[in-house]
């Protein structure tokens, strides 16, 4: 039951977020500071999601070469930076993960 509660809650929250500004009357202007702050939201939030997945091993910071996820993530970052392709980044990261896992 708590799962359905989460689904309904997420649906409402997400719809409100998307509709928020689209439903404002046309003459309402957003404060400049808010508009500037909102620009940083995607980069900040998306990075905050993946960074712990790469840098933590069992909840502990791990920068050693034995951390295959970090190494594979670096490969994926390089591909994403250079080619800006979603599917290619995912494939490259998965291949790199298996490669590093096999090497170490």
């Amino acid at each position, binding site marked *: 039951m708590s799962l359905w509660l989460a689904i309904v809650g997420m649906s409402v*929250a997400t719809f409100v977020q998307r509709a928020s500004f689209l439903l404002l009357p046309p003459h309402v202007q957003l404060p400049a500071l808010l508009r500037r702050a909102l620009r940083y*939201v995607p980069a900040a939030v998306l990075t905050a999601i993946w960074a712990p997945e790469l840098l933590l091993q069992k909840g502990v910071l791990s920068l050693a070469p034995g951390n295959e996820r970090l190494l594979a993530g670096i490969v994926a970052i390089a591909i994403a930076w250079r080619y800006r392709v979603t599917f290619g980044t995912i494939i490259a990261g*998965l291949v790199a993960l298996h490669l590093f896992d096999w090497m170490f």
Partner: protein
Amino acid sequence: MAASGIPPLEAMAMSILVYAGASMLAAAQLIAEGAPALVVVLAAFIVNLRLLMYSASIRPYFAGEPLGRRLLVSYALVDNPYALFIQRFGAHPEAAGKFDYFAGLAIPIWLCWQASVAAGLLVGNQLPAAWKLEFAAPLAFIAMSIPLLRDKQMVAAAVSAGATAVLAHGLPLRSGLALAAVVGIAVGLLAERFWEVKAA
């Protein structure tokens, strides 16, 4: 999604009702950990803060449209149609055919997305764990976030948010994500000010 123990019906309902992939991945992780519904909803809200930004950004293009159309645009407003729409209409909010163009993007994207989720639910559990496909989730977020880093301020916001998320991962109720968002935004704004002053 399948790996997190969400039954297929609930997962499909979530996909159609919520229709925001990044928050669903985050939610699936939390649900697998047995987090309470409120925590899941809050995490989704934070992950989807970028949709608030899209809503603000796309508003001038649809200000003249009837309410029903604006509600439809709201529902379909996810990363890809937003990015493609802005690429096409960019500096021309007064150009004609915006709603039709958006619908032309949003409908095929919606169909592909729902079909992919359904396919994943059908075969996902049969894929061998040795393929390490769970790593595809962070990789997808890397693929989405790296192309956004077009200037120094953006990099500063992303790096500080990532570092905060790592350092704050032990905080209760996944509040590290909210903290990371706040730190990232603040650092981005400060970096903007810093480089402006330096350039002046």
